[in-house]
C-alpha cells in the first residue's frame, strides 16, 4: 500500500500572456488548497471528505470559475454544477443549475448520501438544498465585477466565453483587449485563448488506506445558454472514481463528454492494464483533440498524475513522501 496523494486543478487552457500577478495569485490559492488537503489527510480524513473540503475552499474563493466567481449565463445569472464520487463503492452525487447554493460540491455530496438519486438539477436541486438546510445566498453573491465585464465582452464578440481576467484588464479598451487576444493565435472552442480559460476546479485524493475520490465544480461557460449542462456533473466525463483511481477533468466540456475522459482513464487501467501516468497520457493522446482539455488523477497505490494538451493548466499535487508541485505551464 502506498501513502496518500492529492492533486488539485483550477482549469486547463491558460493565456500565455496572463499577467504575472494573476499567475501568482492562482499559485498561492492552489498551494493553500493543497496544504488544506494535506493537513486533512494527515488527520486521517477519508478521501471523500478531503476532496469535498478542498473543492469547497476553491468554490469559496472568487479566483477560479466555481462557486463565487462563476462564469455567467447569457442572462447574467450564475448556474453552477458539481459532482463528487467515492471510489470504493463508486457512490456518486451530482448537481446542475444551482443558483443560490453556496457550495455546490457539498450539495452533490448530500445527493449522494441523503437522496435515493445520483443527480439532481435546477429547481428540484434547489428545493433539496433547502430541505437539507445547506447555506444559501443570493445569486448576486456569486457574480463578480470581473465576470460582468467578461460577459459584456463575450456578448460583443457574440461568442461563448469562459474567462474574465484578460478582457477585464482591458475593460476600458475592450476592442484592444480582444485584438491582442486574437493576435496571440491560440484558440480553444474557436475562440481566442485569452477569452477562453475554463478554470473549472477539481480535486482528486487517495488516502493512506488506498481509497480514491474525485470532485469537480464549475460555473460553466461564460455567456452559456441557460440550462446548459457541461462535463463537470457527468459521472464518467468530468469526474470518476473507482477502486483503482480518481480523476477530475477540465477544458472544453463538449470534448470531455464525447471522450468520456474520466472513465476512460480508469477503463484503460482496468481493461488495458496501464499504469496511472500511462493511462492519463493515453487518454490525452487518443481520446482528445489537440488543445481541448486536461486532467488530474491519483491511483490507489499513492501515485499522482496529470496531463493536458492545452496551453497550461492550473494544477498542484503532493504526495505522502514530501513531494509537492504547483504549476501552470508545461
Amino acid at each position: 500500500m502506498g501513502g496518500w496523494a492529492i492533486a488539485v486543478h483550477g482549469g486547463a487552457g491558460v493565456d500565455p500572456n496572463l499577467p504575472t500577478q494573476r499567475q501568482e495569485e492562482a499559485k498561492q490559492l492552489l498551494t493553500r488548497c493543497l496544504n488544506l488537503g494535506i493537513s486533512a489527510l494527515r488527520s486521517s480524513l477519508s478521501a471523500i471528505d478531503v476532496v469535498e473540503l478542498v473543492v469547497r475552499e476553491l468554490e469559496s474563493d472568487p479566483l477560479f470559475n466555481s462557486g463565487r466567481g462563476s462564469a455567467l449565463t447569457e442572462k447574467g445569472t450564475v448556474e453552477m454544477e458539481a459532482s463528487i464520487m467515492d471510489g470504493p463503492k463508486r457512490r456518486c452525487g451530482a448537481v446542475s443549475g444551482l443558483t443560490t447554493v453556496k457550495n455546490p460540491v457539498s450539495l452533490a455530496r448530500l445527493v449522494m448520501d441523503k437522496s435515493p438519486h445520483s443527480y439532481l438539477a435546477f429547481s428540484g436541486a434547489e428545493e433539496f438544498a433547502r430541505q437539507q438546510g445547506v447555506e444559501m445566498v443570493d445569486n448576486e453573491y456569486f457574480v463578480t465585477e470581473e465576470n460582468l465585464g467578461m460577459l459584456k465582452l463575450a456578448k460583443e464578440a457574440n461568442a461563448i466565453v469562459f474567462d474574465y481576467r484578460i478582457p477585464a484588464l482591458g475593460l476600458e479598451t475592450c476592442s484592444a483587449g480582444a485584438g491582442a487576444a486574437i493576435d496571440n493565435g491560440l484558440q480553444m472552442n474557436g475562440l481566442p485563448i485569452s477569452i477562453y480559460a475554463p478554470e473549472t476546479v477539481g480535486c482528486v485524493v487517495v488516502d493512506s488506506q488506498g481509497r480514491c475520490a474525485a470532485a469537480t465544480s464549475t460555473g460553466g461557460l461564460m455567456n452559456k445558454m441557460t440550462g446548459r449542462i457541461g462535463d463537470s456533473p457527468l459521472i464518467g466525463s468530468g469526474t470518476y472514481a473507482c477502486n483503482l483511481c480518481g480523476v477530475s477533468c477540465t477544458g472544453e466540456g463538449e470534448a470531455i463528454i464525447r471522450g468520456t475522459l474520466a472513465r476512460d482513464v480508469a477503463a484503460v487501467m482496468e481493461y488495458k492494464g496501464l499504469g496511472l501516468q500511462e493511462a492519463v497520457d493515453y487518454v490525452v493522446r487518443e481520446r482528445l483533440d489537440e488543445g481541448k482539455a486536461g486532467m488530474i488523477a491519483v491511483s490507489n497505490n499513492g501515485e499522482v498524475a496529470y496531463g493536458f494538451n492545452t496551453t497550461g493548466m492550473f494544477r498542484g499535487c503532493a504526495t505522502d513522501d514530501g513531494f509537492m508541485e504547483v504549476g501552470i505551464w508545461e
Partner: protein
Amino acid sequence: MVSKKKKVPNPHSGGSQKKKKVPNPHRRVVGVGVGVGVAVAEWSWDIPLTLPPGRREPRVAALHHCLQIGVEALKAKLPPLDVVELVVRELENNPHFNAGKGSVLTSNGTVEMEACIMDGNTKNCGAVSGLSTVVNAISLARLVMEKTPHIYLGFDGAEAFAREQGVETVDPSHFITPENVERLQQAKEVNRVQIDYTQPIQKEILAETHTANGDSQIGTVGCVAVDSHGNLATATSTGGLVNKMVGRIGDTPVIGAGTYANSLCAVSATGKGEAIIKATVARDVAALMEYKGLSLKEAAAYVIDECVPKGNAGLVAVSAKGDVIMQFNTSGMFRACATEDGYSEVGIWPSSMQN
C-alpha cells in the same frame, strides 16, 4: 494496495468461431444489399410471467410496429442517426411506454422527460432533461446536437430552446395517463418513509419497489441502428422513475451511462439509473471492445453480468459489423431486433423461458 481484478472473458476463446445469427458478412463485404441491425427495447423492473395479456400485447404490438419502421427506414437508406430518432419518436408517441406520452410521474405528479442521441462515427451527441411540454424529447436532443454549441440542455433552458426551434409542444397534461397517476399513488404508499428526508434514507429501495401488477416501473425506450456501411447511432428516451424527486436526472441523458456510440458499436441501456451511471454501462460495452478486444456479445455480457447488480439493467447494442445483442439481468425486457438477412426477434422474457 491491489484492487480486486475482475474476470474478463478471454477474447480469444473461440470468439471467431461463434455462430452468428446476424447478417451474412460476405454480402456486407462486397457491399451488396442493405446492412441492417436494429433493436428496440422497453425495459421493466420486473415482468412477471403472469403479466396479463392486456398489459403485454399492446407493447409487443408496438415493438413490432416500431421495428418495422426502423427496418424500412434502413432499407430506404436513411442514415442510422435518422433511423434511431424516427423509431424513438414512435415509441415516445405510444402511451404504453415510459417516454413521451405515458411518462411516469415525479413525486409532485408532474412529468419531467429526458433523452439523448449519439452518432457513432463523429461522436456528436445531444441530450435534454427536465422537459415538460415537448412532444418528442429525442428530436430536441437532436437539435441540441445540431443547432447549439452545447451537448446538453436541461429544464427551463431546454424548454426555451424548444420554443426557439419551433418544435411541437403541448400542455404538460398531454403526457399524463390515468395508469401513471395510479402508479404514482401506489409508489407513494410503498415509499412513504423513503421520501421523508428527516429519516435515514434506505438507498435504492425506491427503485426496487414494484406494485402488484408488476409493471409499475416500466422503463425507458431506446433504439440502436447500424447500416451497411457500418455507420452507427443510438437514442434513448425516458420519463424517468415513478415518484422520482423533482429535478432528478437519470442515466438516459448521461453520455456513457445510458447512451453511447462510437465507430465500433452503439449502445442504449436502461434500468436502475443510479446503477447504470456508476457503472458507465454504455461506454463500458464500447471500452471493453476497444481496450480488451472483446466482441459485442462478450462485452455486453460482461457489463450486464459483472458490472451491474442483478435485476438492475438491460441494453440493446449493435456493432459496426452488423451484430446485434439484447442483454439484460432483469426478469425480462420488452425488446425487438432485426437484421439484414431477414432475422427478427421480439421478446419479453429470457428466450429460454419463452418457448
